[in-house]
Protein backbone atom coordinates (compact mmCIF):
# COMPACT_ATOMS: atom_id res chain seq x y z
CA UNK A 1 0.00 0.00 0.00
CA UNK A 2 1.30 3.41 -0.83
CA UNK A 3 0.32 6.70 0.73
CA UNK A 4 2.21 9.74 -0.36
CA UNK A 5 1.34 13.14 1.04
CA UNK A 6 2.71 16.18 -0.65
CA UNK A 7 4.96 18.27 1.56
CA UNK A 8 3.06 21.13 3.08
CA UNK A 9 0.13 19.03 4.21
CA UNK A 10 -0.78 20.38 7.60
CA UNK A 11 -2.94 17.55 8.76
CA UNK A 12 -1.70 15.06 11.23
CA UNK A 13 -2.70 11.46 10.69
CA UNK A 14 -4.96 10.35 13.51
CA UNK A 15 -3.18 8.51 16.28
CA UNK A 16 -5.00 5.25 15.74
CA UNK A 17 -3.96 5.17 12.09
CA UNK A 18 -0.36 5.59 13.18
CA UNK A 19 -0.67 2.69 15.58
CA UNK A 20 -2.34 0.37 13.13
CA UNK A 21 0.39 1.02 10.61
CA UNK A 22 3.01 0.44 13.26
CA UNK A 23 1.46 -2.91 13.87
CA UNK A 24 1.78 -3.90 10.28
CA UNK A 25 5.03 -5.37 9.08
CA UNK A 26 5.50 -2.69 6.49
CA UNK A 27 8.45 -0.45 7.14
CA UNK A 28 7.37 3.03 7.85
CA UNK A 29 9.22 5.59 5.90
CA UNK A 30 8.47 9.06 6.96
CA UNK A 31 9.78 12.30 5.60
CA UNK A 32 10.77 14.54 8.43
CA UNK A 33 9.51 18.04 8.03
CA UNK A 34 8.75 20.72 10.51
CA UNK A 35 5.11 21.57 10.81
CA UNK A 36 3.41 23.49 13.57
CA UNK A 37 0.29 21.40 13.45
CA UNK A 38 2.12 18.17 13.91
CA UNK A 39 4.91 18.83 16.32
CA UNK A 40 8.42 18.20 15.26
CA UNK A 41 7.90 14.87 13.53
CA UNK A 42 5.72 13.17 10.97
CA UNK A 43 4.26 15.08 8.13
CA UNK A 44 4.16 13.32 4.84
CA UNK A 45 5.02 9.71 4.90
CA UNK A 46 5.44 6.76 2.64
CA UNK A 47 4.94 3.08 3.28
CA UNK A 48 7.31 0.80 1.46
CA UNK A 49 8.19 -2.81 1.33
CA UNK A 50 11.93 -2.11 1.69
CA UNK A 51 14.54 0.64 1.46
CA UNK A 52 13.73 3.55 -0.84
CA UNK A 53 16.93 3.07 -2.84
CA UNK A 54 20.13 1.05 -2.88
CA UNK A 55 23.65 2.28 -3.63
CA UNK A 56 26.29 0.00 -4.97
CA UNK A 57 29.04 -0.54 -3.90
CA UNK A 58 28.36 -0.39 -0.16
CA UNK A 59 31.24 0.82 2.02
CA UNK A 60 34.07 0.34 -0.49
CA UNK A 61 37.71 0.82 0.47
CA UNK A 62 39.93 2.60 -2.07
CA UNK A 63 43.46 3.86 -2.44
CA UNK A 64 43.95 7.62 -2.71
CA UNK A 65 43.79 8.77 -6.31
CA UNK A 66 41.66 5.92 -7.55
CA UNK A 67 38.35 6.24 -9.39
CA UNK A 68 34.94 4.87 -8.55
CA UNK A 69 31.62 4.48 -10.34
CA UNK A 70 28.63 4.11 -8.06
CA UNK A 71 25.00 3.42 -8.89
CA UNK A 72 21.78 4.39 -7.13
CA UNK A 73 18.74 2.22 -7.86
CA UNK A 74 15.43 3.54 -6.59
CA UNK A 75 12.59 1.32 -5.52
CA UNK A 76 10.02 1.26 -8.29
CA UNK A 77 7.24 1.85 -5.74
CA UNK A 78 8.48 5.38 -5.30
CA UNK A 79 7.64 6.37 -8.85
CA UNK A 80 10.82 8.41 -9.05
CA UNK A 81 12.81 8.63 -12.24
CA UNK A 82 16.57 8.37 -12.51
CA UNK A 83 16.62 11.92 -13.94
CA UNK A 84 15.07 13.15 -10.68
CA UNK A 85 18.02 12.03 -8.61
CA UNK A 86 21.29 13.71 -7.66
CA UNK A 87 24.43 12.83 -5.70
CA UNK A 88 26.33 14.50 -2.87
CA UNK A 89 29.68 13.58 -1.36
CA UNK A 90 30.20 14.81 2.21
CA UNK A 91 27.34 17.24 1.71
CA UNK A 92 28.68 18.73 -1.54
CA UNK A 93 26.62 18.24 -4.65
CA UNK A 94 28.43 16.34 -7.39
CA UNK A 95 28.34 17.85 -10.91
CA UNK A 96 25.62 16.49 -13.21
CA UNK A 97 28.24 15.97 -15.93
CA UNK A 98 29.50 13.00 -13.94
CA UNK A 99 26.04 11.39 -13.86
CA UNK A 100 24.75 8.77 -16.27
CA UNK A 101 21.23 7.41 -16.51
CA UNK A 102 21.58 3.65 -16.80
CA UNK A 103 17.89 2.85 -16.90
CA UNK A 104 14.57 4.25 -15.73
CA UNK A 105 15.36 3.85 -12.05
CA UNK A 106 19.15 3.79 -11.89
CA UNK A 107 21.58 6.69 -11.95
CA UNK A 108 25.35 6.30 -11.82
CA UNK A 109 28.09 8.74 -10.84
CA UNK A 110 31.76 8.70 -11.78
CA UNK A 111 34.29 9.85 -9.20
CA UNK A 112 37.91 10.30 -10.17
CA UNK A 113 41.15 10.96 -8.35
CA UNK A 114 39.66 10.55 -4.89
CA UNK A 115 41.22 12.40 -1.97
CA UNK A 116 41.85 10.78 1.39
CA UNK A 117 38.73 10.34 3.52
CA UNK A 118 37.77 13.45 5.40
CA UNK A 119 36.72 11.55 8.52
CA UNK A 120 37.68 8.12 9.77
CA UNK A 121 34.05 6.97 9.78
CA UNK A 122 34.11 7.25 5.98
CA UNK A 123 33.06 9.80 3.35
CA UNK A 124 29.29 9.98 2.92
CA UNK A 125 28.21 9.37 -0.67
CA UNK A 126 24.46 10.03 -0.76
CA UNK A 127 21.73 9.62 -3.38
CA UNK A 128 18.97 12.23 -3.15
CA UNK A 129 15.61 12.73 -4.75
CA UNK A 130 14.93 16.05 -6.43
CA UNK A 131 13.45 17.64 -3.29
CA UNK A 132 16.62 16.97 -1.37
CA UNK A 133 15.48 14.03 0.75
CA UNK A 134 17.98 11.27 1.30
CA UNK A 135 17.19 7.98 -0.41
CA UNK A 136 20.34 5.95 0.34
CA UNK A 137 23.97 6.30 1.32
CA UNK A 138 27.31 4.53 1.15
CA UNK A 139 30.48 5.25 3.11
CA UNK A 140 33.74 5.51 1.16
CA UNK A 141 37.03 4.69 2.82
CA UNK A 142 39.84 6.29 0.82
CA UNK A 143 43.37 6.20 2.11
CA UNK A 144 46.76 4.56 2.05
CA UNK A 145 48.02 1.27 3.36
CA UNK A 146 50.16 1.64 6.47
CA UNK A 147 53.92 2.05 6.29
CA UNK A 148 56.35 0.03 8.34
CA UNK A 149 56.48 1.33 11.92
CA UNK A 150 60.00 1.98 13.17
CA UNK A 151 62.18 3.37 15.95
CA UNK A 152 61.09 0.83 18.53
CA UNK A 153 62.53 1.76 21.93
CA UNK A 154 61.73 -0.08 25.13
CA UNK A 155 62.51 0.21 28.80
CA UNK A 156 61.78 -1.83 31.88
CA UNK A 157 61.00 -0.24 35.21
CA UNK A 158 62.86 -2.15 37.90
CA UNK A 159 62.86 -5.31 35.76
CA UNK A 160 59.18 -5.78 36.47
CA UNK A 161 57.58 -4.69 33.21
CA UNK A 162 58.33 -3.46 29.69
CA UNK A 163 57.10 -0.33 27.95
CA UNK A 164 57.80 0.18 24.26
CA UNK A 165 57.35 3.16 21.99
CA UNK A 166 57.46 3.28 18.22
CA UNK A 167 57.00 5.71 15.38
CA UNK A 168 54.39 5.15 12.64
CA UNK A 169 55.69 4.95 9.08
CA UNK A 170 56.08 8.34 7.33
CA UNK A 171 54.02 10.81 9.33
CA UNK A 172 51.30 8.33 10.19
CA UNK A 173 48.63 9.92 7.99
CA UNK A 174 46.83 7.13 6.23
CA UNK A 175 43.36 8.76 6.32
CA UNK A 176 42.05 5.44 7.53
CA UNK A 177 41.94 4.19 11.07
CA UNK A 178 45.20 2.30 11.55
CA UNK A 179 45.49 -0.22 14.33
CA UNK A 180 48.87 -0.90 15.91
CA UNK A 181 49.66 -4.15 17.66
CA UNK A 182 52.85 -4.73 19.59
CA UNK A 183 53.93 -8.35 19.63
CA UNK A 184 56.72 -10.10 21.45
CA UNK A 185 58.09 -13.57 21.95
CA UNK A 186 61.04 -15.24 23.59
CA UNK A 187 63.66 -15.75 20.95
CA UNK A 188 63.90 -19.50 21.26
CA UNK A 189 60.49 -20.30 22.54
CA UNK A 190 58.15 -19.74 19.63
CA UNK A 191 54.85 -18.45 21.03
CA UNK A 192 53.72 -14.95 20.00
CA UNK A 193 52.29 -12.70 22.67
CA UNK A 194 50.26 -9.56 22.09
CA UNK A 195 50.59 -6.44 24.20
CA UNK A 196 47.26 -5.27 25.62
CA UNK A 197 47.74 -1.91 27.36
CA UNK A 198 48.17 0.78 24.74
CA UNK A 199 48.87 4.52 24.90
CA UNK A 200 50.52 4.42 28.33
CA UNK A 201 53.44 6.60 27.20
CA UNK A 202 52.11 8.55 24.24
CA UNK A 203 49.94 7.59 21.30
CA UNK A 204 52.29 4.93 19.90
CA UNK A 205 53.20 2.97 22.98
CA UNK A 206 52.28 -0.18 24.82
CA UNK A 207 52.91 -1.57 28.30
CA UNK A 208 53.57 -5.22 29.18
CA UNK A 209 52.97 -5.45 32.92
CA UNK A 210 54.20 -8.90 33.91
CA UNK A 211 55.47 -12.40 33.16
CA UNK A 212 58.73 -11.26 31.64
CA UNK A 213 61.77 -13.46 31.70
CA UNK A 214 65.25 -12.16 32.45
CA UNK A 215 68.55 -13.25 30.91
CA UNK A 216 66.71 -14.33 27.75
CA UNK A 217 66.40 -12.22 24.64
CA UNK A 218 62.97 -11.18 23.42
CA UNK A 219 61.92 -10.45 19.87
CA UNK A 220 59.65 -7.42 19.66
CA UNK A 221 57.87 -5.96 16.66
CA UNK A 222 54.88 -3.79 15.75
CA UNK A 223 52.17 -4.60 13.22
CA UNK A 224 50.18 -1.78 11.67
CA UNK A 225 46.96 -2.62 9.88
CA UNK A 226 44.10 -0.77 8.27
CA UNK A 227 41.47 -1.48 5.65
CA UNK A 228 44.06 -1.33 2.88
CA UNK A 229 46.74 -3.58 4.28
CA UNK A 230 49.26 -4.55 6.89
CA UNK A 231 52.82 -3.46 7.54
CA UNK A 232 55.23 -5.05 9.99
CA UNK A 233 58.22 -3.33 11.56
CA UNK A 234 61.69 -4.78 11.84
CA UNK A 235 62.17 -7.12 14.75
CA UNK A 236 64.03 -5.69 17.70
CA UNK A 237 65.89 -8.07 19.96
CA UNK A 238 66.60 -7.23 23.56
CA UNK A 239 67.15 -8.67 27.00
CA UNK A 240 65.09 -7.02 29.72
CA UNK A 241 68.24 -6.57 31.78
CA UNK A 242 69.74 -4.34 29.12
CA UNK A 243 66.99 -1.75 29.22
CA UNK A 244 66.42 -1.34 32.91
CA UNK A 245 65.57 2.00 34.39
CA UNK A 246 64.50 2.84 37.87
CA UNK A 247 62.88 5.48 40.01
CA UNK A 248 64.72 8.73 40.64
CA UNK A 249 66.82 8.89 43.81
CA UNK A 250 64.83 9.49 46.97
CA UNK A 251 65.25 11.99 49.79
CA UNK A 252 67.27 14.54 47.86
CA UNK A 253 68.45 17.26 50.25
CA UNK A 254 70.53 20.30 49.41
CA UNK A 255 72.19 22.23 52.21
CA UNK A 256 74.81 24.88 52.77
CA UNK A 257 78.38 24.02 53.61
CA UNK A 258 78.92 26.06 56.75
CA UNK A 259 79.44 29.66 55.77
CA UNK A 260 80.94 28.95 52.38
CA UNK A 261 79.24 31.25 49.91
CA UNK A 262 80.05 29.32 46.77
CA UNK A 263 79.18 25.76 47.74
CA UNK A 264 76.19 23.57 48.39
CA UNK A 265 76.09 19.98 49.53
CA UNK A 266 73.69 17.54 47.86
CA UNK A 267 72.68 14.28 49.46
CA UNK A 268 70.28 11.52 48.37
CA UNK A 269 69.51 7.86 48.86
CA UNK A 270 69.59 5.20 46.20
CA UNK A 271 66.23 4.24 44.69
CA UNK A 272 64.61 1.69 47.01
CA UNK A 273 63.38 -0.68 44.28
CA UNK A 274 66.80 -1.85 43.29
CA UNK A 275 68.14 -2.39 46.77
CA UNK A 276 68.12 -6.15 46.43
CA UNK A 277 69.70 -6.37 43.06
CA UNK A 278 73.38 -6.42 42.57
CA UNK A 279 74.15 -3.30 40.71
CA UNK A 280 76.24 -0.20 40.83
CA UNK A 281 74.27 2.94 40.46
CA UNK A 282 75.61 5.88 38.53
CA UNK A 283 74.28 9.30 39.36
CA UNK A 284 74.06 12.62 37.61
CA UNK A 285 73.21 16.00 39.09
CA UNK A 286 71.90 19.02 37.32
CA UNK A 287 71.41 22.44 38.81
CA UNK A 288 70.49 25.95 37.77
CA UNK A 289 69.95 29.37 39.26
CA UNK A 290 66.41 30.31 40.02
CA UNK A 291 65.89 32.71 37.15
CA UNK A 292 67.70 30.81 34.44
CA UNK A 293 66.60 27.89 32.31
CA UNK A 294 70.12 26.63 31.64
CA UNK A 295 71.01 23.52 33.58
CA UNK A 296 74.58 22.67 34.52
CA UNK A 297 75.23 18.96 34.61
CA UNK A 298 77.63 17.21 36.95
CA UNK A 299 78.55 13.97 35.28
CA UNK A 300 81.25 12.39 37.29
CA UNK A 301 79.31 11.72 40.46
CA UNK A 302 79.97 8.00 40.35
CA UNK A 303 78.09 5.86 42.81
CA UNK A 304 78.30 7.97 45.97
CA UNK A 305 75.12 9.33 47.41
CA UNK A 306 76.45 12.79 48.08
CA UNK A 307 78.22 15.49 46.17
CA UNK A 308 79.43 19.00 46.72
CA UNK A 309 78.69 21.72 44.22
CA UNK A 310 81.33 24.43 44.05
CA UNK A 311 81.95 27.64 42.16
CA UNK A 312 78.47 28.90 42.90
CA UNK A 313 77.28 32.45 43.21
CA UNK A 314 76.81 33.71 46.76
CA UNK A 315 73.37 34.67 47.95
CA UNK A 316 71.63 32.85 45.11
CA UNK A 317 68.81 30.32 45.03
CA UNK A 318 69.66 27.13 43.17
CA UNK A 319 67.41 24.29 41.94
CA UNK A 320 68.98 20.85 42.03
CA UNK A 321 67.89 17.51 40.56
CA UNK A 322 69.44 14.05 40.67
CA UNK A 323 68.92 11.00 38.51
CA UNK A 324 70.11 7.43 38.59
CA UNK A 325 71.35 4.84 36.12
CA UNK A 326 71.34 1.21 37.25
CA UNK A 327 74.76 0.35 35.95
CA UNK A 328 75.92 -3.21 35.64
CA UNK A 329 72.91 -5.13 36.86
CA UNK A 330 73.71 -8.64 37.96
CA UNK A 331 77.29 -8.10 37.05
CA UNK A 332 76.78 -7.05 33.47
CA UNK A 333 79.05 -4.33 32.15
CA UNK A 334 76.29 -2.44 30.45
CA UNK A 335 74.69 0.77 31.56
CA UNK A 336 70.97 0.89 32.01
CA UNK A 337 68.64 3.71 31.13
CA UNK A 338 68.70 6.95 33.09
CA UNK A 339 65.75 7.44 35.42
CA UNK A 340 63.64 10.56 35.44
CA UNK A 341 65.11 13.51 37.31
CA UNK A 342 64.05 13.81 40.93
CA UNK A 343 61.72 16.66 41.82
CA UNK A 344 63.74 19.89 42.00
CA UNK A 345 65.06 20.77 45.46
CA UNK A 346 65.88 24.39 46.20
CA UNK A 347 68.55 25.88 48.43
CA UNK A 348 70.43 29.15 48.62
CA UNK A 349 74.08 29.98 49.10
CA UNK A 350 74.96 32.29 51.97
CA UNK A 351 75.43 35.98 51.27
CA UNK A 352 78.70 37.57 52.45
CA UNK A 353 78.53 40.21 55.28
CA UNK A 354 81.11 42.51 53.72
CA UNK A 355 79.03 44.64 51.56
CA UNK A 356 80.94 46.79 49.10
CA UNK A 357 79.03 49.51 50.78
CA UNK A 358 77.66 52.94 50.40
CA UNK A 359 80.09 55.36 48.84
CA UNK A 360 81.92 57.42 51.40
CA UNK A 361 82.97 60.79 50.08
CA UNK A 362 86.45 60.65 48.72
CA UNK A 363 87.76 63.21 51.18
CA UNK A 364 86.52 61.16 54.09
CA UNK A 365 88.42 58.15 52.89
CA UNK A 366 91.53 60.19 52.52
CA UNK A 367 91.15 61.50 56.04
CA UNK A 368 90.96 57.98 57.39
CA UNK A 369 94.08 56.95 55.52
CA UNK A 370 95.88 60.16 56.45
CA UNK A 371 94.92 59.87 60.04
CA UNK A 372 96.07 56.28 60.17
CA UNK A 373 99.37 57.20 58.66
CA UNK A 374 99.87 60.04 61.09
CA UNK A 375 99.08 57.78 63.96
CA UNK A 376 101.75 55.40 62.77
CA UNK A 377 104.18 58.30 62.35
CA UNK A 378 103.69 59.66 65.85
CA UNK A 379 104.05 56.15 67.22
CA UNK A 380 107.38 55.87 65.44
CA UNK A 381 108.46 59.34 66.65
CA UNK A 382 107.71 58.41 70.22
CA UNK A 383 109.84 55.36 69.89
CA UNK A 384 112.74 56.61 67.88
CA UNK A 385 112.87 60.38 68.41
CA UNK A 386 113.83 61.72 71.87
CA UNK A 387 112.39 65.11 71.29
CA UNK A 388 108.77 65.97 70.41
CA UNK A 389 107.57 63.57 73.09
CA UNK A 390 104.33 65.50 73.26
CA UNK A 391 103.55 64.74 69.68
CA UNK A 392 100.61 62.39 69.52
CA UNK A 393 97.58 61.72 67.45
CA UNK A 394 95.62 63.72 69.97
CA UNK A 395 97.49 66.78 68.81
CA UNK A 396 96.35 66.10 65.25
CA UNK A 397 92.74 65.72 66.33
CA UNK A 398 92.83 69.00 68.21
CA UNK A 399 94.27 70.72 65.18
CA UNK A 400 91.43 69.31 63.05
CA UNK A 401 88.85 70.68 65.46
CA UNK A 402 90.51 74.11 65.44
CA UNK A 403 90.52 74.03 61.66
CA UNK A 404 86.77 73.43 61.52
CA UNK A 405 86.04 76.20 63.97
CA UNK A 406 88.17 78.73 62.17
CA UNK A 407 86.56 77.76 58.87
CA UNK A 408 83.19 78.66 60.27
CA UNK A 409 84.21 82.03 61.67
CA UNK A 410 85.98 82.89 58.45
CA UNK A 411 82.69 82.34 56.62
CA UNK A 412 80.79 84.42 59.14
CA UNK A 413 83.32 87.21 58.89
CA UNK A 414 83.07 86.95 55.17
CA UNK A 415 79.32 87.38 55.43
CA UNK A 416 79.45 90.45 57.62
CA UNK A 417 82.19 92.02 55.55
CA UNK A 418 79.75 92.27 52.71
Amino acid at each position, binding site marked *: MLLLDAPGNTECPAQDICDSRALSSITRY*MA*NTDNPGCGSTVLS*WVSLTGNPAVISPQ*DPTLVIGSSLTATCSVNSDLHLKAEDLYWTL*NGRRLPPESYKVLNGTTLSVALANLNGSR*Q*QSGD*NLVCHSRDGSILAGS*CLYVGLPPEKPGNITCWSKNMKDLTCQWAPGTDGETYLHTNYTLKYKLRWYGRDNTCQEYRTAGQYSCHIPKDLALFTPYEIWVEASNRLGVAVSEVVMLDILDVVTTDPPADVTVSRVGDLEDQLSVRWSSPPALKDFLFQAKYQIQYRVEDSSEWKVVDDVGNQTSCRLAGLRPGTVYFVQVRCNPFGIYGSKKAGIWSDWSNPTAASTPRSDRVPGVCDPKSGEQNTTLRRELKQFFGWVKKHAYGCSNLSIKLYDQWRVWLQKSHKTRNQVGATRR
Partner: protein
Amino acid sequence: MNFLSRWLLSPGARSKARGSGPELNKLFVYFLSPVDRANLLSSTSSSSSLSQQEVATKIKQTHRLTVLLKHCSEQLLAEYVRHQGEPFSSPDFQPPAMAVPGLPSPSVPPEAWLALSDGKRLWHLAAAYATLPGLLGSVRRQQAELNPLASELHRQLEAAARQCLGLAGNLEGIMGALELPGPPPPSSSLGGPPTSAFLAKLTGYHVCRLHRDWAMRSHEALGLLRTKYPL
Protein backbone atom coordinates in the same frame (compact mmCIF):
# COMPACT_ATOMS: atom_id res chain seq x y z
CA MET B 1 -17.71 20.87 46.27
CA ASN B 2 -18.28 22.50 49.65
CA PHE B 3 -15.53 23.89 51.81
CA LEU B 4 -15.39 20.85 54.03
CA SER B 5 -14.95 18.36 51.23
CA ARG B 6 -12.34 20.55 49.57
CA TRP B 7 -10.35 20.58 52.79
CA LEU B 8 -10.76 16.84 53.22
CA LEU B 9 -9.41 16.17 49.77
CA SER B 10 -6.35 18.37 50.26
CA PRO B 11 -3.07 16.50 50.79
CA GLY B 12 -2.55 17.84 54.32
CA ALA B 13 -5.97 16.79 55.52
CA ARG B 14 -5.63 13.30 54.12
CA SER B 15 -2.65 12.51 56.29
CA LYS B 16 -4.37 14.05 59.30
CA ALA B 17 -7.55 12.10 58.64
CA ARG B 18 -5.60 8.88 58.61
CA GLY B 19 -4.51 9.45 62.14
CA SER B 20 -7.73 10.71 63.70
CA GLY B 21 -9.51 7.41 64.05
CA PRO B 22 -12.28 5.65 62.16
CA GLU B 23 -15.18 7.43 63.94
CA LEU B 24 -14.01 10.86 62.91
CA ASN B 25 -13.48 9.64 59.36
CA LYS B 26 -17.03 8.34 59.16
CA LEU B 27 -18.35 11.67 60.41
CA PHE B 28 -16.40 13.68 57.81
CA VAL B 29 -17.32 11.34 55.02
CA TYR B 30 -21.01 11.94 55.82
CA PHE B 31 -20.68 15.57 54.72
CA LEU B 32 -19.19 14.75 51.34
CA SER B 33 -20.92 14.44 48.00
CA PRO B 34 -20.88 10.91 46.57
CA VAL B 35 -18.20 11.78 44.06
CA ASP B 36 -15.96 13.38 46.63
CA ARG B 37 -16.62 10.51 48.96
CA ALA B 38 -15.40 8.07 46.40
CA ASN B 39 -12.30 10.18 45.73
CA LEU B 40 -11.49 10.51 49.41
CA LEU B 41 -11.93 6.84 50.10
CA SER B 42 -9.79 5.81 47.20
CA SER B 43 -6.98 8.14 48.23
CA THR B 44 -7.01 7.49 51.97
CA SER B 45 -7.35 3.77 51.55
CA SER B 46 -4.29 3.67 49.29
CA SER B 47 -1.47 2.12 51.20
CA SER B 48 1.32 3.72 49.24
CA SER B 49 4.61 3.09 50.91
CA LEU B 50 5.73 6.66 50.28
CA SER B 51 4.16 9.62 52.02
CA GLN B 52 3.08 12.64 50.05
CA GLN B 53 6.26 14.36 51.10
CA GLU B 54 8.40 11.54 49.82
CA VAL B 55 6.57 11.37 46.51
CA ALA B 56 6.96 15.10 46.04
CA THR B 57 10.67 14.83 46.81
CA LYS B 58 11.07 12.01 44.32
CA ILE B 59 9.24 14.01 41.67
CA LYS B 60 11.48 17.00 42.32
CA GLN B 61 14.61 14.83 42.08
CA THR B 62 13.40 13.25 38.87
CA HIS B 63 12.62 16.64 37.42
CA ARG B 64 16.18 17.72 38.11
CA LEU B 65 17.40 14.55 36.41
CA THR B 66 15.41 15.52 33.33
CA VAL B 67 17.11 18.93 33.34
CA LEU B 68 20.44 17.09 33.20
CA LEU B 69 19.17 14.76 30.50
CA LYS B 70 17.91 17.65 28.41
CA HIS B 71 21.32 19.32 28.54
CA CYS B 72 23.36 16.16 27.97
CA SER B 73 21.19 14.89 25.13
CA GLU B 74 21.73 18.14 23.22
CA GLN B 75 25.47 17.81 23.71
CA LEU B 76 25.41 14.18 22.68
CA LEU B 77 23.58 14.89 19.44
CA ALA B 78 26.06 17.65 18.58
CA GLU B 79 29.04 15.43 19.39
CA TYR B 80 27.55 12.55 17.42
CA VAL B 81 26.94 14.43 14.17
CA ARG B 82 30.37 16.00 14.39
CA HIS B 83 31.98 12.57 13.98
CA GLN B 84 29.81 11.30 11.16
CA GLY B 85 30.78 14.01 8.66
CA GLU B 86 28.59 15.94 6.26
CA PRO B 87 25.66 15.88 5.66
CA PHE B 88 25.00 14.71 9.25
CA SER B 89 26.88 17.63 10.74
CA SER B 90 25.30 20.35 8.61
CA PRO B 91 22.64 22.44 10.38
CA ASP B 92 19.97 21.79 7.76
CA PHE B 93 20.40 18.03 7.75
CA GLN B 94 17.18 16.29 6.65
CA PRO B 95 17.42 12.61 7.45
CA PRO B 96 14.98 10.12 6.06
CA ALA B 97 12.82 9.35 9.07
CA MET B 98 12.90 5.71 9.96
CA ALA B 99 11.19 3.68 12.62
CA VAL B 100 13.80 2.73 15.18
CA PRO B 101 12.71 -0.75 16.19
CA GLY B 102 11.20 -0.77 19.64
CA LEU B 103 11.31 2.95 20.21
CA PRO B 104 8.26 5.05 19.43
CA SER B 105 9.13 8.55 18.42
CA PRO B 106 7.04 11.03 20.36
CA SER B 107 4.13 10.58 17.99
CA VAL B 108 1.72 12.49 20.18
CA PRO B 109 1.74 16.11 19.05
CA PRO B 110 2.50 18.77 21.71
CA GLU B 111 -1.03 19.97 22.39
CA ALA B 112 -2.35 16.43 22.68
CA TRP B 113 0.63 15.61 24.95
CA LEU B 114 -0.30 18.35 27.37
CA ALA B 115 -3.90 17.24 27.40
CA LEU B 116 -3.01 13.71 28.45
CA SER B 117 -3.37 12.69 32.06
CA ASP B 118 -0.25 12.45 34.22
CA GLY B 119 -0.65 8.70 34.24
CA LYS B 120 -0.72 8.44 30.46
CA ARG B 121 2.24 10.75 30.07
CA LEU B 122 4.29 8.79 32.59
CA TRP B 123 3.28 5.61 30.81
CA HIS B 124 4.67 6.88 27.49
CA LEU B 125 7.86 8.07 29.18
CA ALA B 126 8.37 4.78 30.99
CA ALA B 127 7.94 2.88 27.72
CA ALA B 128 10.52 5.07 25.98
CA TYR B 129 13.09 4.93 28.77
CA ALA B 130 12.79 1.18 29.01
CA THR B 131 14.24 0.87 25.52
CA LEU B 132 16.61 3.87 25.28
CA PRO B 133 19.48 2.41 27.35
CA GLY B 134 19.74 -0.64 25.09
CA LEU B 135 19.58 1.44 21.93
CA LEU B 136 22.24 3.87 23.15
CA GLY B 137 24.39 0.86 23.96
CA SER B 138 24.05 -0.43 20.41
CA VAL B 139 25.01 2.98 19.05
CA ARG B 140 28.08 3.00 21.27
CA ARG B 141 29.13 -0.42 19.92
CA GLN B 142 28.67 0.73 16.34
CA GLN B 143 30.60 3.93 16.94
CA ALA B 144 33.42 1.91 18.49
CA GLU B 145 33.89 0.45 15.01
CA LEU B 146 33.11 3.55 12.94
CA ASN B 147 34.94 6.09 15.08
CA PRO B 148 37.37 4.15 17.27
CA LEU B 149 39.28 7.22 18.41
CA ALA B 150 36.27 9.35 19.38
CA SER B 151 36.63 8.68 23.10
CA GLU B 152 34.52 11.68 24.13
CA LEU B 153 31.62 10.42 21.98
CA HIS B 154 31.89 6.95 23.50
CA ARG B 155 31.94 8.44 26.99
CA GLN B 156 28.84 10.52 26.32
CA LEU B 157 26.95 7.58 24.84
CA GLU B 158 27.73 5.48 27.90
CA ALA B 159 26.71 8.30 30.21
CA ALA B 160 23.46 8.80 28.30
CA ALA B 161 22.56 5.11 28.65
CA ARG B 162 23.23 5.29 32.39
CA GLN B 163 21.15 8.44 32.80
CA CYS B 164 18.24 6.84 30.92
CA LEU B 165 18.44 3.81 33.19
CA GLY B 166 18.33 6.16 36.17
CA LEU B 167 15.31 7.97 34.81
CA ALA B 168 13.56 4.68 34.07
CA GLY B 169 14.07 3.62 37.67
CA ASN B 170 12.82 6.92 39.02
CA LEU B 171 9.73 6.81 36.81
CA GLU B 172 8.99 3.32 38.03
CA GLY B 173 9.22 4.54 41.60
CA ILE B 174 6.91 7.49 41.02
CA MET B 175 4.35 5.44 39.15
CA GLY B 176 4.41 2.83 41.87
CA ALA B 177 3.86 5.45 44.56
CA LEU B 178 1.00 7.01 42.63
CA GLU B 179 -0.37 3.55 41.87
CA LEU B 180 -0.27 4.10 38.15
CA PRO B 181 0.01 1.19 35.74
CA GLY B 182 3.33 0.80 33.96
CA PRO B 183 4.01 -0.25 30.38
CA PRO B 184 4.92 -3.83 29.51
CA PRO B 185 8.65 -4.63 29.48
CA PRO B 186 10.26 -4.03 26.10
CA SER B 187 10.83 -6.94 23.75
CA SER B 188 14.44 -7.99 23.91
CA SER B 189 14.96 -8.04 20.17
CA LEU B 190 16.30 -4.75 18.88
CA GLY B 191 16.85 -6.02 15.38
CA GLY B 192 20.13 -7.21 13.91
CA PRO B 193 23.19 -4.99 13.45
CA PRO B 194 22.94 -2.52 10.55
CA THR B 195 24.06 -3.90 7.24
CA SER B 196 26.08 -0.89 6.15
CA ALA B 197 28.17 1.90 7.64
CA PHE B 198 25.82 4.56 6.33
CA LEU B 199 22.81 2.87 7.89
CA ALA B 200 24.72 2.61 11.14
CA LYS B 201 25.40 6.35 11.06
CA LEU B 202 21.74 7.01 10.29
CA THR B 203 20.41 4.71 13.02
CA GLY B 204 22.72 6.30 15.54
CA TYR B 205 21.54 9.73 14.49
CA HIS B 206 17.92 8.75 15.00
CA VAL B 207 18.58 7.25 18.40
CA CYS B 208 20.42 10.38 19.56
CA ARG B 209 17.72 12.63 18.16
CA LEU B 210 14.94 10.62 19.77
CA HIS B 211 16.89 10.60 23.02
CA ARG B 212 16.89 14.38 22.87
CA ASP B 213 13.20 14.61 21.93
CA TRP B 214 12.21 12.33 24.78
CA ALA B 215 14.41 14.30 27.16
CA MET B 216 12.49 17.44 26.27
CA ARG B 217 9.16 15.67 26.72
CA SER B 218 10.15 14.17 30.05
CA HIS B 219 11.36 17.55 31.28
CA GLU B 220 7.98 19.05 30.37
CA ALA B 221 5.99 16.25 31.97
CA LEU B 222 7.97 16.23 35.20
CA GLY B 223 7.65 19.99 35.41
CA LEU B 224 3.87 19.68 35.26
CA LEU B 225 3.92 16.89 37.81
CA ARG B 226 6.04 18.98 40.12
CA THR B 227 3.48 21.78 40.21
CA LYS B 228 0.82 19.26 41.13
CA TYR B 229 2.90 17.72 43.90
CA PRO B 230 4.68 20.65 45.48
CA LEU B 231 6.99 20.23 48.41
